[in-house]
């Protein structure tokens, strides 16, 4: 099933929350997208994260439960301690199997799964972080016809993760504080 909206998957570690918060006010219902957030974090931060995001956004914010539907104008948060996968029938599956890149949820796992399920409809954005999780997944998104964006490492709290991506991949957009419009056009492309 090809969705009639685009899928935006954003991955980062704890330090990237502030970047997401600055992005949220720009995500309005004019955009034909659904957003999925993968944060490396501790389990006890979950409810706070939900509330902080919901306060800043026009979209409905939801921490994913198993087999939830993927819908337009929602922001889905991967629950702590589960990998988050996307099914072709526009639902989520959760998975508690081994950590990947020392992480669960792993950004790679969700990026790869989104790429496999929804190909050209996917945009991946990799933010600040301290390990290489996400780079392999970005590559998969690109290979399946999606677009990839990376936070400018110079503006990232922890630059290792985005720097890995910039060094190793051909990026469609380097996200800075000044080109948010370009990013919105990228995720909203037809």
């Amino acid at each position, binding site marked *: 099933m090809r969705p009639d909206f685009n899928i935006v998957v954003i991955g980062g570690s704890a330090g990237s929350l502030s970047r997401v918060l600055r992005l949220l006010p720009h995500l309005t219902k004019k955009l034909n997208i659904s957003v999925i957030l993968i944060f490396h974090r501790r389990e006890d931060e979950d409810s706070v994260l939900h509330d902080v995001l919901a306060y800043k956004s026009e979209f409905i914010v939801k921490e994913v439960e198993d087999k939830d539907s993927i819908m337009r104008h929602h922001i889905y948060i991967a629950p702590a301690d589960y990998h988050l996968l996307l099914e072709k029938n526009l639902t989520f599956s959760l*998975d*508690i199997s081994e950590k990947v890149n020392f992480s669960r949820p792993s950004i790679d796992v969700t990026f790869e799964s989104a790429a496999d399920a929804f190909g050209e409809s996917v945009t991946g954005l990799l933010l600040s972080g301290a390990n290489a999780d996400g780079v392999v997944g970005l590559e998969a998104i690109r290979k399946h016809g999606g677009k990839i964006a990376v936070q400018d490492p110079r503006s990232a709290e922890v630059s290792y993760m985005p720097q890995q991506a910039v060094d190793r991949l051909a990026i469609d957009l380097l996200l800075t504080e000044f080109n948010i419009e370009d990013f919105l056009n990228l995720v909203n492309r037809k």
Partner: protein
Amino acid sequence: MSADLNLTDEQIAIILSDLIEHYGYDFTNYSAASLKRRIQRLLTMDKVVSFAEFRHRIQRDADYFKRFVEQVTVNVTEMFRDAHFYRTLREQVIPELATRPLIRIWHAGCSTGEEVYSMAILLQEANLLHKSLLYATDINPAVLEKVRLGMFPMSQMKQYSENYIHSGGRNDFSKYYIAQYDTAKFDESFKSRIILATHNLVSDTSFNEFQLILCRNVMIYFDKELQDRALELFDNSLEKLGFLALGSKETLKFSSVMSRYKQLDNKEKIWRKVS
């Protein structure tokens, strides 16, 4: 997962139908995305270079089929995982079971048994273990052997001990096991109350009636249709006023059995069969 060989959905469908034909195991209603990921992981680990090689090996080599089941099903578990869940079992569920002459509990998809031993500890502390039976079942015979041994890595005990304390445990956790080099061997008295059996939630039926069924983070690997089938099976295996416990991100909502169940007030993922 940078496997050079990437199977298409059609190739995976062929493998799944081979498994039914040759071994009677039906994975077709597993969550497609996670199943595919597990199969790709196996291909990478085993350095499989072609679909034809993989298919041939599964068809002809029963030992390799065993490996397939062991690697594709997920066996990540821990003792007292989600401490607040175990606290609710302690405070709200076990007291309800205490009056029964015999307490029967089913751990469906028990994996390597960490949850079964956690439950046995709770029952012991409530002084109920002597009249309880814990049925531990899994699709994968290899993990049941681990449950039988009751041996877990010593390296995990610090974490498990913390989980245990958070669940309301008051004892020194180390009194429940004997350290043998890098393993913690759990007390023999637990083993005598545990009954092991292979059971496939896809194809097997109800085999007893229980007061409590736990199936946590097992049905996340099933699609909606198979989840409903498994829930019907649990419903048929649960006494009236019995309890059904699921994983922290699973729900009975939108399922076919939902109308007969009421979730505990504290919103823990435990439901009581009310009619």
